[in-house]
């Protein structure tokens, strides 16, 4: 392997590591935020002390999680310039704008108002204090929008022209209303809500298993299920429609995610296969195929045509010159399935949970409680696989059809530097993960009723004086 491709590979590995890691924390923030805000709203409206306890209980988990999201988010902003200088010069005119707006209009809101919420229990009226949380949540949701506008431009560039080898913005409205971005936004925000509700539900189930505070956690479980059941179902539909939009923007990504070498019409969906992931070995040794389903998923019609990898490769070669324009088919194929199957599994868990809840059997169904606890891992699997599909499916392009990843790295940054930084990031991030998991586990198991009694309303829990913040 030559040095130039080593530095690109290491930079890719670093960007993948840091952004996947960042996105372990972001969607839980996106989803748990509104759920905690709803619980605080219910407390504000009804005065029911249980909702206050739940607000604090899940609010603590929200903040532990949020801290790492903030810490690792800055890395993402710096890495574009640090590792991808050619990319940054090429896209800055277009891509920089939503990123800057995100910081100024969204992240600022989130960071400032969360500080008000955390420390404002005694300083603000209950109404204003509640509003600070909703504004912070609004900030996180706005933030997601601008980040996805930026990312979607890499998937489907719109509203630009190329001048002197640089992309220049020609229409900010085209950028902000990019169909790809809007679909990706809905898909991602639903993913956030799934994170929030599935994680919350799993934690409730853990408390049911313990048999403590069952009444309290029933309320939280109900709220989690009210969100989880429709949202996991809706996400299956939205994800499917999003896939169809990707087909038109990035046919290669879809063909690769189906390991579809030859153009087909109608096309069956490969649910599972062994082999068939390389051009030399295009026919799977074994596969389970559902007739016509791929046609429907990719085009919306059961008779639709889906272009194969070989045809798309020939097309791109004639358009962009010789080269390999196919992503890693094996990785893209399996990441698509991991995402989709985890999504279906989450719907089943939520639906079954709701059924048991309605029959008042949830707390006794120990086998199911264990499943629900294990299901906490599913949104993480789905989100990680989803981003691997999105980003690896776009390769070899860093900006679809405009700039190749292999030409986008920083000329001034050597492979040695990236090797050093990658090693340090992995070490630091692992250490943070260990502490975070330990804290999350510890605080997910706290007994919310154990706080000192009789201190309701907006007063913060009275702590032993010596341990105040």
């Amino acid at each position, binding site marked *: 392997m030559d040095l130039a491709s080593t530095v690109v590979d290491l930079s890719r590995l670093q960007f993948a590591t840091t952004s996947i890691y960042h996105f372990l924390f972001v969607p839980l923030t996106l989803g748990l935020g509104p759920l905690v805000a709803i619980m605080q709203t219910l407390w504000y409206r009804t005065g029911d002390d249980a909702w206050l306890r739940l607000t604090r209980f899940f609010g603590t988990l929200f903040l532990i999680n949020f801290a790492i999201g903030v810490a690792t988010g800055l890395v993402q902003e710096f890495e574009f310039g640090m590792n991808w200088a050619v990319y940054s010069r090429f896209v800055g005119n277009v891509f*920089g*704008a939503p990123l*800057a707006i995100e910081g100024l209009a969204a992240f600022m809101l989130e960071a400032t108002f969360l500080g008000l919420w955390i420390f404002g229990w005694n300083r603000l009226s209950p109404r204003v204090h509640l509003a600070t949380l909703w504004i912070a949540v609004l900030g996180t949701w706005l933030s997601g929008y601008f980040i996805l506008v930026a990312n979607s431009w890499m998937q489907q560039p719109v509203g630009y022209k190329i001048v002197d080898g640089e992309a220049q913005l020609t229409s900010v409205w085209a950028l902000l209303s990019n169909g790809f971005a809007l679909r990706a936004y809905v898909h991602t925000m639903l993913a956030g809500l799934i994170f929030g509700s599935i994680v919350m539900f799993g934690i409730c189930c853990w408390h049911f298993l313990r048999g403590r505070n069952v009444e309290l956690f029933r309320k939280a479980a109900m709220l989690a299920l009210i969100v989880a059941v429709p949202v996991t179902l809706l996400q299956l539909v939205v994800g499917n429609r999003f896939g169809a939009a990707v087909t038109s923007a990035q046919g290669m990504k879809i063909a690769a995610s189906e390991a579809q070498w030859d153009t087909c019409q109608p096309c069956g969906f490969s649910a599972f296969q062994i082999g068939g992931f390389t051009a030399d070995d295009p026919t799977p040794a074994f596969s389970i195929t559902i007739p016509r389903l791929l046609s429907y998923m990719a085009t919306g019609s059961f008779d639709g045509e889906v272009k194969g990898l070989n045809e798309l490769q020939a097309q791109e070669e004639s358009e962009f010159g010789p080269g390999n324009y196919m992503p890693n088919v094996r990785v893209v194929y399996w990441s698509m399935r991991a995402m989709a199957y985890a999504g279906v599994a989450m719907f089943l868990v939520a639906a079954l949970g709701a059924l048991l809840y309605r029959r008042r059997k949830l707390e006794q169904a120990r086998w199911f409680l264990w499943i629900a606890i294990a299901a906490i891992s599913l949104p993480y699997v789905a989100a990680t696989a989803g981003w691997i599909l999105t980003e690896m499916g776009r390769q070899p392009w860093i900006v679809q059809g405009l700039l190749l990843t292999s030409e986008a790295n920083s000329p001034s940054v050597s492979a040695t530097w990236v090797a050093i930084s990658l090693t340090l990031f992995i070490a630091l991030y692992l250490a943070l993960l260990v502490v975070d998991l330990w804290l999350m586990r510890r605080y997910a198991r706290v007994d919310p009723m154990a706080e000192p009694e009789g201190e309701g309303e907006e007063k913060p829990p009275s*702590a032993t004086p010596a341990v105040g913040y």
Partner: protein
Amino acid sequence: MDLEIFWFGIVVFFWSGYFLLEGFDFGVGMLLPFVPRSEQERSVLFRSIGPVWDGNETWLVVAGGATFAAFPAWYASMFSGFYIALLLVLFFLIIRVVSFEWRTKSTSPRWRRVWLWANSVGSYGAALIWGVGLSNLLYGVPLDSNGDFTGTFWDLFSPYTVFAGVTVIALFAFHGATFLTLRATGAFLDRVGRTARVLSFPALVLGVGFLATTVGVAMDRNDKDLFPPVLPAAVGIAALLLAALLVRTRSGWAFAMTALGTVATVVTLFTSLYPRVMVSDPNFGNSLTVDSASSAHYTLAVMSVVALIVVPLVLLYQGWTYHVFRQRLEGDEPGEESVPELSTQPEA
């Protein structure tokens, strides 16, 4: 007015805001291991910046984002050129960010010590590197004709840039101490006041020395005249002098003066830099300029509209936050957080 110049001004404004705001919370972090003598006093320090540090740090996110959008070539050259330095900044900021939320999550003295030091080391480290990094923009680093950095990590360290790093630490420590004189009470306030008086000396000596040197470096290495860089430098020197005088008697004014001194230092550096944004040395001709590094007119126009609408709002609500948390903090006040402190051990 040219939008490129306007955006250069906006970027300077964001960096100034970042130094002004995160400057004092870095300063508080620097004092953490040395000034408080009890857990209560340490808690006062943490609580004094607890509600605001995240909003303060966002000014860095905004400064970075604005540079990316308005001056992509500057952003690309600076961030890739200062690779290892920025990597270190990220590490310092990350351990500091998590320390705020995680420190209170256990009462074990050892746990709390770890996160106190994480916060403090992060504050010193980030301040040092920002000083070294930003002063390198003016002092000059080797760039090729594409604007790509051709030096090594060690090229970032020259007597002037290390001087800048140390000066930023001294300024922030003083700035943090004057901030604490507005937050502490009782006997602790007396001690914080003494700390501020002691810290005024290094801040004044280094600050004056650095501002004067910067004007010299601008003339010597960036083809500038004495005027205009001398103007903000003079304001900065006056502000630091006043801060050192007022710190005995008028803590509110002293804080205002350390704030002004900090902002004037950033403005002096960038005024010395203009119209270049990153000086190349050797091969001065490869320097990046406001014109050569900027985005096209349309992007700048869009961003201008956004900035003109959103920046006043940000100032308004952040100002309100400081108003909400304006009062002095008692050492024995109970926790302010919404979250349950572990008054009982969690179930294992």
